């Protein structure tokens, strides 16, 4: 079966610094694959390069189609939703306008969006810039979800959220993962262990480990690659 995403030998150089040094990742269809690693190892860069937001060399195949070198909007329309780090909602636009802008299909799936995030319906006329961090994250995920796209790239959704919100977010992402294949960048290992089936660990711009999410129970692996001591 064709993978949702295949990346091989991806290199990115930013301002003379060789940030990605031959990253290869395969994301099978269905479930959550977590992309892990310490700060600054190139996780966000990997997602941005996949979307053509920064120049790269290497091969990128989305659902069997070679998209390397494509313009970002064409890659996205192939069926890739993006939830960026720091959410990047359009602060001056209302919630409704943020969602409307994301509509790319004739029948946007507002039912899915509002069933997972009912709060967005009530806040549709509010400016996104005045929302709390958690609410902005809902808008950001909703935009990616609206078109029923098969692959979602989700970058550190729990960043900056209060612990109670992180568990609500994990609930929501669990439902999102039933609708699409997710490549998740996440620092919160509790969230990763709850959601992910597979893990890919990056270090210094290279993939240093690929395996099953249950391996995170191994404190040695967590310590070696992620710089954390075991998480229960």
């Amino acid at each position, binding site marked *: 079966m064709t993978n949702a995403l295949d990346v091989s030998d991806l290199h990115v150089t930013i301002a003379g610094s060789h940030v990605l040094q031959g990253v290869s990742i395969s994301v099978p269809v269905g479930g959550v694959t977590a992309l892990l690693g310490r700060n600054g190892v190139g996780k966000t860069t990997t997602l941005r390069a996949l979307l053509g937001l920064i120049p790269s060399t290497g091969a990128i195949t989305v659902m069997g189609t070679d998209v390397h070198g494509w313009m970002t909007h064409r890659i996205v329309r192939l069926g890739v939703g993006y939830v960026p780090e720091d959410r990047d909602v359009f602060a001056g*636009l209302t919630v409704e306008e943020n969602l409307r802008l994301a509509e*790319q299909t004739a029948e946007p799936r507002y039912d899915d969006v509002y069933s997972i995030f009912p709060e967005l319906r009530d806040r549709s006329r509010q400016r996104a810039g005045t929302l709390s961090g958690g609410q902005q994250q809902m808008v950001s995920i909703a935009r990616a979800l609206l078109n029923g796209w098969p692959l979602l790239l989700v970058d550190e959704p729990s960043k900056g959220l209060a612990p109670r919100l992180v568990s609500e977010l994990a609930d929501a992402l669990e439902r999102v993962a039933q609708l699409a294949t997710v490549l998740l960048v996440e620092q919160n290992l509790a969230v990763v262990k709850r959601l992910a089936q597979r893990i890919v660990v990056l270090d210094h711009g290279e993939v240093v480990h690929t395996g099953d999410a249950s391996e995170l129970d191994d404190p040695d692996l967590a310590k070696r690659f992620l710089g954390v001591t075991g998480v229960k």
Partner: protein
Amino acid sequence: MIVFLALTFSGIALGAIYFLAASGLSLIYGLMDILNFAHGLFMTLGAYAAWDVASHLPASWGTPLLFTIAVFASVVGGALSAGLTEVFIIRPLYGRPISQILVTIGLDLAVVGLLLGGFGSNSLSVPVPLWLIEASHLGGLNLPNSDFVALIAGVVVLVSLEWFLRKTRYGITIRAGVENRDMVSALGINVGRAFTLVFVIGGAMAGLAGLLYAVVFSGDLISPTQGDSLLIFAFIVVVIGGLGSIRGSAVAALAVGLVQDYTNFYLGSHPGMAEIGNLSVVLLLALVLEWRPRGLFGSTL
């Protein structure tokens, strides 16, 4: 008091023209990070398109009809020159903002040079209806009719632009792009189309500004360099208003028009003070930037 009111009115009319010239410049910068030095050229080309079309039509059609056609020609001429500039000159340099800025300067110099070669440096006269040169008496004031036309044009453009930016999908795309261009394309939207669109809209307004400036302030005469002198004030308006903000441009255009008009009248007649109007505008710019470095309306639409 009568004089002050009359000055206020003509200052507002001047502001309306500055707004037409500046709002497109502001949108283009906000969305694409390009300081478009060819914007003055679009004003000039709008005015020349108006003159060219009007002077090739039979005079028997009468000046009211000819002038109406000339107004449309200025809008189309400005829009067309801006659209072609974006597609053929700006787009190949995508991702290289410095080159894009430099090429707009070169384009302006080259085409103004061609106009000087082709039409000469003498001013050309646009046919206008008689009532446009006359004035209306209103509450003891003598108000030039051309000022009314500029004012109405400014208000109509401001209202339509606000409507377009708030209610249409393209408008929302432009507002979102001014905030975060990358995220707009990451939603599957072809930002390049929005780029062309803001150039076309900005060019249309610039073309109209070019014609109206000739009608209101230079006795219906157009010249190849008129756009460049208007461009300087348009830049000042954009910076005072806040780059990328349409409302900011509107407020700043009014302020600049009024300050220029008042100081020219009250101080300009003193010896050595002939340039006080222009100087006061630059002072206003300095004061506003001292107080709000990002302009009156920051960087949101």
